[in-house]
């Protein structure tokens, strides 16, 4: 019997939460926002999500097969990237563009840097940024209930505060915008799921949203702080994108600095930038600072006094 014994170094038990389960819970937490997207934008939103998820998983599979690596699509991380990318696209985006965006996110941003855990920026956001630069018009055409119109953030930017949709519409997501970003209510349900299952901690989303709200008010944008945070992709970005493990700092202290940085950049872009929305670029820029933040916020080693310099 003992011939079959495994001999290894301790510890010998593991927490049941593994990569695949974490990604599964992220997908589950994203589901309410997806359902809201389909409800408000119609079946085409579901089709965009399907295209992105299938493309991302397929590109990861093909890349790993072609480069003779272990295929890791079963960890569901590519599916998460695909779904997040779809949530960042307008429902009317042509399918081929969504597919090219997925290709960029998975191959260029994720796999070329070494795959899961090695990318320096969030793949879904980088994919969206690439698409926004390449196809600015299809990427900023918003339709809701068959009518195209300006997003709340564009209205705020233009100073047309009185034209803003009602509070309830902004909260439940009945406004123009990307598929997964408009329903703050659905995204908050997702946040609750992530917190309950201990997938993320509260610090990044709360600090990010609070700093953005405070600074937008301070910069005198005219809209009420709640209108600012319900508008645009702030909830989606703060809850699901800025909390991406790989591209956020490792310690709580670092995460607070990171989130505050995201908030400052978002408010600056919204107030003075060329775009109405600044969430994706703020997160992408702050992603690049993560190695520095990690170095600066190393935990204090037990028993050691903090070294200078």
């Amino acid at each position, binding site marked *: 019997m003992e011939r079959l014994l495994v001999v290894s170094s301790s510890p010998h038990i593991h927490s049941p939460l593994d990569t695949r389960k974490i990604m599964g819970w992220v997908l589950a937490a994203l589901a309410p926002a997806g359902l809201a997207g389909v409800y408000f934008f119609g079946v085409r939103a579901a089709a965009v999500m399907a295209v992105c998820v299938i493309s991302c998983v397929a590109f990861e599979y093909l890349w790993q097969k072609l480069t003779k690596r272990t295929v*890791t699509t079963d960890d569901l991380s590519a599916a998460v990237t695909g779904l997040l990318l779809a949530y960042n696209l307008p429902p009317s985006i042509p399918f081929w563009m969504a597919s090219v965006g997925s290709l960029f996110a998975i191959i260029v941003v994720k796999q070329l840097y070494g795959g899961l855990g090695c990318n320096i920026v969030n793949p879904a956001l980088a994919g969206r940024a690439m698409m926004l630069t390449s196809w600015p018009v299809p990427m900023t055409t918003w339709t809701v209930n068959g009518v195209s119109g300006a997003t709340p953030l564009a209205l705020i930017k233009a100073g047309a505060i009185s034209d803003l949709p009602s509070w309830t519409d902004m909260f439940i997501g009945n406004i123009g915008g990307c598929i997964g970003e408009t329903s703050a209510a659905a995204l908050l349900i997702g946040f609750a799921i992530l917190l309950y299952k201990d997938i993320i901690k509260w610090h990044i989303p709360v600090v990010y949203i609070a700093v953005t709200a405070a600074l937008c008010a301070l910069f005198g944008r005219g809209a009420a702080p709640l209108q600012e945070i319900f508008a645009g992709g702030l909830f989606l970005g703060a809850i699901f994108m800025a909390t991406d493990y790989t591209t956020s700092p490792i310690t709580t202290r670092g995460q607070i600095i990171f989130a505050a940085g995201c908030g400052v950049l978002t408010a600056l872009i919204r107030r003075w930038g060329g775009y109405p929305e600044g969430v994706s670029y703020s997160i992408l820029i702050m992603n690049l600072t993560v190695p520095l933040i990690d170095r600066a916020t190393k935990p204090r080693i037990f028993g050691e006094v903090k070294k200078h310099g």
Partner: protein
Amino acid sequence: MKLPTFWGGIHPPQSKELTVGESIVSYRPQGELVFPMAQHIGAPCAPVVAKGDRVLVGTRLGNNDAFVSAPVLSSVSGTVKDVTLRLTVPGTFETCVVVEDDGKNELAPEWRPLENYETADPKEYIKRIRDAGIVGFGGATFPTAVKLSPPPDKKIRWLIINGVECEPYLNCDNRLMLENAEKIVKGTVLVMRLFPEAKGIIAIENNKPEAIALLNETVSKSGAENITVQPLAVKYPQGAEKMLIEALTGQEFVITALPADVGCIILNVRTVYQIYSAIVEGLPAVTRIVTVTGDAVAHPKNIRVPQGTMIRELIDLCGGFKEQPVKILAGGPMMGMSMRSLDVPVVKGTSGILCLTAKSTMLKPIRACLHCGRCVSACPMGLVPTVLEPLVHARQYKRFEEEGGMNCIECGSCTYMCPANRPLTQGCRDGKASVAAMRRKAAAK
């Protein structure tokens, strides 16, 4: 009330219910017993008996006069059958004395209670503790006589009796406290004679309410003034030396320092029990309580066995295996050592035999690090395991040292938490061993 604890740590499933209600049963081994000469931290013993010698319970089988050492005593009476290499717990062959048990269980004549022990010079205790072969029975097996002889300039303010038992599955200390509370308290009183200025704290994790209540009652009944029973929050590794001192005294200390440097001495409950036994009852520390448990064992038990008993006999006593074990460990699941054979003897540091099935070991493939930070939140030492492990892998030992890798206490919390199943603790252990080897090599030059 918020119970004292430390920073970091994890909450693995306790799995103590398998044996928590099992009273300690005594077992008499059959046939031969095997006594490895290296059973403690410090200088290993050399055999002082030869083939054919008659030995009694408490007869010295091995000794070393080095300061940091403890003798190895026979746990049975019988004849020395051989002095040879035998397989031991770590899977290596070590010099062992093999004794054929005659079943008479005759105590060696030199073992008598210490006369007038209540008024005797406490220095006598130290000698007795060493002679009885007492080491830290919590698992680290540091010779207790050495621990109780701190340099005179170190003022000992706390004597901490460790009944935390934070390792999942194990119940040997818990059962000992439930069944021998009085001897533990009396042993503590004896040790406190060595450190009259110290405050005695019996620390128990709050998942053992019966032990806490019983010891509280015993302490107040004994009239010992300077001893308190302190419940601690349930969190692994609460029983680790540094975490225990942090929780109880709020002090931290660097890796190179010893508890005595911050005025603390920590003894396991089993160690205090053996001290009492050696001084008052005149018995050598030759038995050990072993929790035989795990989901592969038919009838898990807490067993009092003479040291040197073969582990296979204990498994048989527990009804053998009901399921195929995948790992058999000496110790708990977090820091225990996995064994490749059951034909190894129980030694001073064997606190448990844990037989895990494939289901409970959860052997899973190693995946890429997600940078999720769970290891960082878990590390009680404030390290970043996900940075340390790749450094060891790349053999960058200098950077490993700079990042504080030598501080790792190998508690296993980071590996337990890692969703990608990365061997983080294992990496640090490897790194520490490599650095230590390089230091030894440099010192030898």
